[in-house]
């Protein structure tokens, strides 16, 4: 018995020693806007998803600006992590975007921080005829959020869309046209 315990202690020390020799991967903090935050409850959705992603921590998220700060452990996030050749920030962002998408059936995605300052964006208000339904709100949000030049968008309970756009890249007409392409809205 004594021999067995000694062996166990020895083995534990040996393993601990090996682990201590490995350099710990430094965590990386990144900031990106989150596509998919069309109403406040989506923040909660995001917070529910993140703990299921290994090596990902949501430091904070700002619903108004849709900017979220993430802390990533590259060794856990990257599938083929090589300590001698750590991934670039862009590679980490791509990986995080992929993980988020898979965990949320593609209802969350990342995009770069705002291209233009908020004060230079234009607020567009749209009012499609939709039901008081989360799925419908997501549908109309989805119809315009990914358009080039749409910096952010939210949808109220009444279906009212508030979109901040880069006037140099898009306009209300484009948004109206995009909304008409949302399946079901073309024939109310």
């Amino acid at each position, binding site marked *: 018995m004594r021999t067995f315990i000694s062996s166990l202690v020895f083995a534990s020390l040996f393993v601990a020693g090996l682990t201590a020799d490995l350099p710990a991967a430094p965590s990386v903090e990144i900031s990106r806007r989150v596509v998919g935050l069309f109403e406040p409850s989506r923040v909660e959705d995001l917070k529910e998803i993140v703990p299921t992603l290994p090596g990902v921590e949501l430091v904070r998220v700002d619903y108004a600006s849709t900017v979220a700060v993430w802390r990533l452990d590259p060794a856990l996030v990257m599938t083929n992590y090589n300590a001698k050749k750590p991934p670039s920030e862009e590679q980490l962002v791509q990986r995080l975007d992929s993980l988020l998408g898979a965990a949320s059936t593609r209802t969350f995605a990342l995009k770069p921080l705002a291209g233009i300052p908020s004060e230079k964006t234009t607020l567009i208000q749209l009012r499609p005829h*939709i*039901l008081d*339904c989360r799925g419908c709100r997501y549908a109309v949000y989805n119809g315009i959020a990914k358009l080039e030049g749409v910096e952010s968008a939210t949808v109220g309970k009444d279906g009212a869309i508030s979109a901040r756009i880069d006037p140099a890249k898009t306009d209300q007409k484009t948004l109206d046209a995009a909304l008409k392409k*949302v399946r079901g809205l073309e024939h109310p």
Partner: protein
Amino acid sequence: MPSLRRFFFLNACLGLLSSVALTAAGAESIKPAIQPFLEAHCTGCHDAETKKGNLDLTALRDQLTEAENFSRWVKIHDRIESGEMPPKKKARPPVADVAAVKAVLSRALLQAEATKQVGGGRTTLHRMTRSEYENTVRDLFALPGIAVRAGLPADGSAHGFDNNSDALDISHVNLARYIDAADTVLNMAIATRPVAPATSLVRLSLARNYEPDIMLMQGDAMLFRDKKPDPVFPPAGEYAHVDQGAHEQIGIFDRMSSVGVFRHEDDSWNPYFRHFASLYPGRYRIRASFWSLTWDKGEVRPARGVEAARLSVVQFNENGRGGQHPSYVLGYFAAPSLESKVHEMNVWFNEKETIGFNPASLAPIRLYRIGNYGPKGRIMGYTGPCVVSDWVDIEGPFNDVWPPRSHQLLFGSLPISEIKPDPKAAQRPPVRVPLRQDIIGCRNRPETEKGVWSVTSAHPMADADKLLADFLPKAFRRPVTAETRAQYLAQFDLRVKAGDCFETAMRWVYRAALCSPDFLYHVEAPGKLDDYALASRLSYFLWNSQPDELLAGLITSGQIRDPKVLDQQIERMLSDPKSDRFVEDFLGQWLKLRSIGVNDPDKKLYPEFNPYLQDSMVSETRAYFRELLERNLDASFLVRSDFAMLNERLAVHYGITGVSGPEIRKVTLPAGCVRGGFLTQAALLKVTANGTTTSPVVRGSFVMARLLGRPPEPPPANVPAVEPDVQGTTTIREQLAKHRADPACASCHTKIDPAGFALESFDVIGGQRGRYRSIGEGDVPPRGSIDPRIKIDFKLGPKVDASGELPDGRKFADILQLKDILANERQLLLRNLAEQLTVYSTGHALSFGDRTALAEIVARTEAQGGGMRTLIHELIRSPLFQTR
């Protein structure tokens, strides 16, 4: 006839009787013997000039070896025997003359028939029908749901049944399909892995499906939680939900909400549970929870009663992208008001199958609106019934032993071992196609399988011989000689020498056995059936399949012919669920239930018709026949009874109150009710109509042929059919009256039409009517029992006259009086049923010489009360059944 001529005539008859007995050909000289009788009473109308009824007796040859001549002389015998000929308006021949002619004809016909049957027997060798084939492989391999019938060519039909030896030909097409079918069976029977697939349980929601989610968006369906509308998914009203994909992405349909459906299945919509497709064929347990409600523009109220939900098995096509339709119905299940009811059943899934759903009791309404098409308010403007599916659980596959029994039948206890890839090996390993889930949307996945596993043998020849010695007698339903077995073993040896592994070589041999005449044919030697043939005939009669081990054991112990033992076995077999196959197969052909779906009733004339009603009709007829058997009721119940087997849908259709729910149950009929007995069951009334109109000729012929055993002559050539008028101007009776003005037509229609006239009280879907429905002229009909949500477009045309007169002069005012008349013809009804059962069970039409034996069966049955169950016992005991 002058007395001297009579003297010579009778003497000639007596002389002929002895000569007939002496000569093998026998019948060649019957005509001279009865010539005086024919000339005195027959050739006045049936000569070359008049040729009434297309019969010229002066030209009719009496060579009875020719089938057509034989059948003509049988008819002449029957017409004289029944007194129909000479006609009543002509002078009656003396009784002794009639008896003498009958005796001459009878002896000659019997002699000719006996000569024909020498060395052959009354039934010729015949193969299994598709239905028998499928049931046989199901029972032999213990694969109770394997589906191979659809892959086999359709069987022909003769004398009303497809198992008749006259209809069961075989061609190279059959053989090619038998090879395919054998491969299908062996693929499913043989285990290709060391352990059974794990049993899993999945709970499915109707919300996440290919079809219902589309309907949820537009208002044909609705989500519920805790018996209330799901707040996350408001009802579609002025606006519908947009973008189904977005709703799926955000998880609206993944919350296991209950799904209430307002829309009945139709041509473009068949909801089914898409998330599951069976990967491993086998036994599964299904549990399903249903309830119902009345939707009142957004409010949930109690349902109008117990609604019905239908579950079916749906086979996926290819990758499952649309186009799925129910393969077969599992049943109709109660959906009580505001209270979930869980139903449980065991089913067999073949590959790529799932469960389909239909709110069966609902009217065919659509609430969705696209553009300007559809009701404006969608579901929020609707008040009406709704059937709710909470969930469906599918658990399985269940394998109580591994390898499965089917595998053990083929390979005994030989080990299943991993075959390591070895390019230098002398034998090729079996080819395995990797299992994968390729149905779009399905979530269950196959288990990871490593390596190739197969049966192995250390002593291949010895093991193969042992396996064949065990398998072949079971498959061939009789002992197999060593020579026969050696032939199969030689094939095995050839395949092994050609490089096949043990399993592949055995597959080759088993496939050959499953395509051999010993398996495919009912092997019966002429004369009295041996014990094996008797057990087989008994089993194919009552189970539509091979004998089970108990019957086989009784053959071995020599007890199968013991009358007491035989009676016990008949009782056991009739009580076994497998006897449902007999009920289904026999009724499907005798009463043409297989044709129930041949035509769809005109939607304008019969808007209340739906598949639920049709399935209920078939269930009623089967349940009624089962009740006749269980209670051993007499033949009068074929046309009249004081009870019916109904569910709510059928009761409403019949105008009978107090029946709730989809289950078929026995219902006592109110006094004066026209229902009760096969004659007025909706199923029979539907199969005798064309979907738009009814014809007394068609229905009258059906009654004569199927219930009374007196099939009318086929219509003469070049006589146009009487087409009923759906514009509501003339009745079919008026049209037939013109037709019958022609004496040539009248002779047959006098017999055919009366029963058909009485059945004019029933429309094409078996509903009782006082007036014909019309799509032209007529009055606005009352709604009656038609669902208030169904639009009525038809009018009420002329009145129905259901009165008539039978050929013997008896008159009836309506169907009730006709039923009374027919019910009193108990012996006639019993004789016909005995004949139908004989033809079905022996695989051959009743011959002239069988009549005596049949009469004995009827007499013995009558002596014991005339019950249906007794009839089956007597038939099986009879020489007709026990002789080929």
